[in-house]
């Protein structure tokens, strides 16, 4: 029972990758009129065919700076498309603190992830991110925070994902990031039909997400 069914379920997990998909939505604010295209790949670490690796969940996202503090975003969940499900998310971000000494840049992003099966069923999950970041030098930003996803028809109603990550700019437009995330820390890891191999204290699953951002437009163009 276990082996093949687990493969199927893993694919299901890849559909949503637990509590939040992809890297955090908005680490630092965009400038007014500036755009960013981001892609991310990764998820909770699980054992698949005897090999431990992050589940390969892929998200592409577009962000636009409404002003120097607020922005909007829309994303597409690429692997979901492969499963015949339209997966999108959209929402707004707002950065309410700017880095000053030890005070970090802080921002929040709120939105909805929608998964729609043409001719079938759908699932909607409101989302909220909260992230604090420090710019270290000209090119590196480190950040920490939490993502959350909400579901009203089943328990747990709130699925959290605390995270820590870093972004490194390698050009005028391009930055790369790596994020470590503790998926679903309130949920016991086992017994469960997927073998998440990096639980923390017997709960949730540690995972890793790689991200790449491409900035264009705005005042720096």
């Amino acid at each position: 029972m276990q082996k093949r069914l687990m493969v199927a379920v893993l694919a299901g997990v890849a559909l949503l990758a637990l509590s939040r998909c992809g890297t955090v939505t908005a680490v630092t604010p965009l400038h007014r009129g500036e755009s960013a295209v981001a892609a991310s790949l990764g998820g909770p670490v699980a054992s698949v065919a005897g090999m431990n690796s992050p589940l390969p969940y892929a998200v592409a996202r577009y962000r636009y700076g409404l002003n120097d503090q607020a922005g909007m975003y829309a994303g597409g969940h690429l692997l979901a498309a492969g499963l015949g499900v339209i997966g999108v998310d959209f929402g707004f971000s707002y950065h309410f603190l700017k880095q000053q000494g030890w005070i970090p840049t802080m921002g929040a992003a709120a939105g909805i992830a929608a998964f729609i099966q043409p001719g079938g069923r759908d699932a909607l999950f409101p989302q909220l991110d909260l992230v604090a970041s420090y710019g270290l030098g000209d090119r590196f930003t480190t950040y920490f925070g939490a993502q959350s996803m909400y579901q009203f028809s089943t328990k747990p109603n709130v699925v959290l994902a605390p995270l820590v990550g870093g972004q490194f700019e390698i050009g005028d437009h391009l930055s790369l990031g790596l994020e470590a995330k503790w998926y679903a820390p309130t949920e016991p890891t086992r017994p469960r039909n997927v073998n998440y191999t990096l639980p923390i204290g017997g709960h949730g699953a540690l995972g890793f997400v790689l991200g790449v951002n491409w900035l264009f437009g705005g005042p720096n163009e």
Partner: protein
Amino acid sequence: MSRGKSDCRLQNAECRLGGWLLLGLVIALVLPGCFKLDSFLFDPTTLAGDYLNRADMDSSWHVRWIIPDSLIEPETLANPLNGNYIYGFFVRQPAGGDGPDLNGVTVIYNHGNGSNINRYWGRVELLWEAGCNVFIYDYEGYGKSAGTPSGDACYADAEAAVNYVLGRPDVVDSNVVYYGWSLGSFMACHLAADFNSPRCLILENPIASASALAKEAAVLGIPGSFLADADFDNEVRMRFLGCRTLIIYGKNDDTAVPERHALILLDKAYGWIPIRDWPVEDAGHSDIPEKMGYEEYERVVSTFIAGDSL
């Protein structure tokens, strides 16, 4: 964070990376719906030779060879959906035997997702030893059955099995019982809820639904149809079973179907049908009779089928 001046090499690297990203996006958009997961739900083993060949039997299947060959009738049935032939065995009680008397009860055994009839023959022996006639069949693509397993095909296979059993002159309609182990619980519940109400239904380590499988993994409530086209949803069917139902489950099931699935189904059934649960301490997914002891397993099953209180 400020952005420094770029140089040509970085610009080229950026362009190349952007190109790869674009290519990945195109591939992802070109392939929508290509990854169907239903086939992963089934894990059949095909047979080139005969069924019940001792050389093919694994010792972990606990086959004791207690049923005389004269009481085993091989059958082939046509799947009403596509005409594919599926194989089965009807095992009858000896005439005038001195075994337990279940008044000619016939159990239709819907097996799990792995292997084929061979793997479940030890279970057939237990039900036969408990006093029942047993009909076990292979879904499409299992054993020597033709075709490829799918949700619709398996449901049609199960319906063909019921039609065959009810068509036998030695079977009384009101004495037919459906038994489903693991994936077979989908077929058993489908038969009871949608096709033909049985005397009673027995589910062993059942799967609640494809949605429950997804939620076990993802924590989020994802519709089962995202995972599979098969209409595998026992949660919905529980209230429509229309018969006494027994759910036997292991409390130490660490496979893809932990005890939570049984508890979900019990919760869905309460108040709608006469439901009885039988948790088995220390039992996993595949060893319930061994953990209970064969005598106790047969007592529980036969008592429930007889309609006596457990």
